[in-house]
């Protein structure tokens, strides 16, 4: 068995440069998928997480329902639903535009990022809730005593402190979202990092080399995210809250 380690510098059969270009494109696609899904997950997760902590039975129930729904169905199945079924419910000229006019890769991108974002939002919601609920109850009282409204209390006191507290768990969700984005390879032929493996192997038949390079790429991405987030954690840490966590 001989290995072909210069594989990534050979030209592709499609006449569009060398395989290394494919690798860069795929890595970018993985990162953009994760970033888009993260924005969705962070916003929705925060809203639902806050809903879990307010004094309204209805909002509480709604939030619990949301979390249970998105947490208890496998991401792969959720992507199936978003990619295969959801577009059928669009109507009128928007449906025509979305399904026929829009670049299919962008269409797939949008649908799988929504699926990934919603799946992850349920987990972020739980963390935001924990972050808020584990803050000393005195903070709420102090805010009320200062005459802050409910909204102001969340905006200026509870949320900033809660987010700081959950930076480490958010980091691990971030690395999860990057890993989970690989499932997108199963839809619409999206060639992110894992999707690249089989399509490159078809042309080159060098599976071990490809798997090695993709594995290393994921490790580099993962390591970079953790390093950056450690820095963020240091910057945002409140000195007097250290023991609370």
């Amino acid at each position, binding site marked *: 068995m001989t290995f072909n380690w210069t594989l990534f510098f050979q030209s592709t059969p499609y006449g569009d440069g060398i395989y290394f270009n494919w690798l860069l494109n795929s890595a970018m696609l993985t990162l953009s998928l994760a970033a888009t899904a993260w924005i969705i997950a962070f916003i929705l997760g925060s809203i639902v997480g806050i809903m879990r902590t307010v004094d309204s039975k209805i909002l509480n129930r709604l939030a619990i329902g949301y979390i249970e729904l998105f947490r208890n169905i496998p991401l792969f199945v959720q992507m199936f639903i978003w990619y295969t079924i959801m577009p059928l419910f669009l109507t009128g000229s928007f449906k025509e535009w979305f399904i026929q006019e829009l670049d299919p890769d962008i269409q797939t991108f949008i649908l799988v990022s929504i699926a990934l974002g919603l799946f992850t939002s349920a987990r972020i919601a739980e963390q935001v809730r924990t972050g808020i609920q584990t803050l000393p109850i005195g903070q709420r009282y102090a805010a009320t005593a200062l005459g802050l409204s409910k909204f102001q209390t969340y905006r200026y006191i509870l949320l900033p402190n809660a987010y700081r507290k959950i930076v480490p768990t958010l980091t691990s969700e971030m690395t999860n979202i990057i890993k989970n984005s690989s*499932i997108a390879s199963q839809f619409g032929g999206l060639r992110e990092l894992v999707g690249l493996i089989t399509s490159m192997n078809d042309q080159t038949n060098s599976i071990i080399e490809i798997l090695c390079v993709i594995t290393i790429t994921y490790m580099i991405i993962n390591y970079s995210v953790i390093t950056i987030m450690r820095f963020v954690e240091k910057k945002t840490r409140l000195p007097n809250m250290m023991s609370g966590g």
Partner: protein
Amino acid sequence: MQLFQWIADIPTLVMNNYPILLQGLWLTVRITFTAIVVGIIWGTFLALMRLSNNKILNSFAKIYVTTFRSIPLLLVLMWFYFALPQMIKHLFHLGPDADIGTSCAIIAFTLFEAAYYSEIIRAGINAVSKGQYHAASALGMTRSQSMRLIILPQAFRAMVPLLLTQGIILFQDTALVSTIGLVDLLGAAVKRIGENIGSTAEYSMIIFVAITYFIICFGTPRLIRKISYFKKG
């Protein structure tokens, strides 16, 4: 609305094809069960290696856990299914008619999940107070005795909820084995039944799989809690 039609089609599709669905569910359960049991055992060893003073064991466990935790499960599956099946055949003395796809999936899941379990277990061990070690050694126990008899039992009791959550995640992750052509619950429903019958059967089967997973993943933790409550009561 079409959605109701698809849902209305589910019972007939399931009744007509239940053997393959059961076969699929059985594979899902088999992979989950093996990966949980063996994963926790191997994960415990990894956690103990991480906590040991032996440099080699320590760095082996560290590299193992970091590697598996930084790559997607789908990639691990591909490693085992595309690159390593012959190695697995020899290593585990599998007969020529062994189901290599299933073996690869089970091994991939076990090794992958062990990395996650080991981190849970390590945190659990670390959470047991240091005083307990000292007390144990004051009683004349060796390090391994105190680990086995004092620390681990407490750590595991405290970790049960986290291990259960990880088990549910693992159960959901098994849906990925259909990507390497195995017939698990999803593979049976969507690939074997849905795609083969064509028309709108695929939509019905996707909805069916989503509902089934939801019921199992939502219900199991509650069921376990109820059982353990009655046992205690």
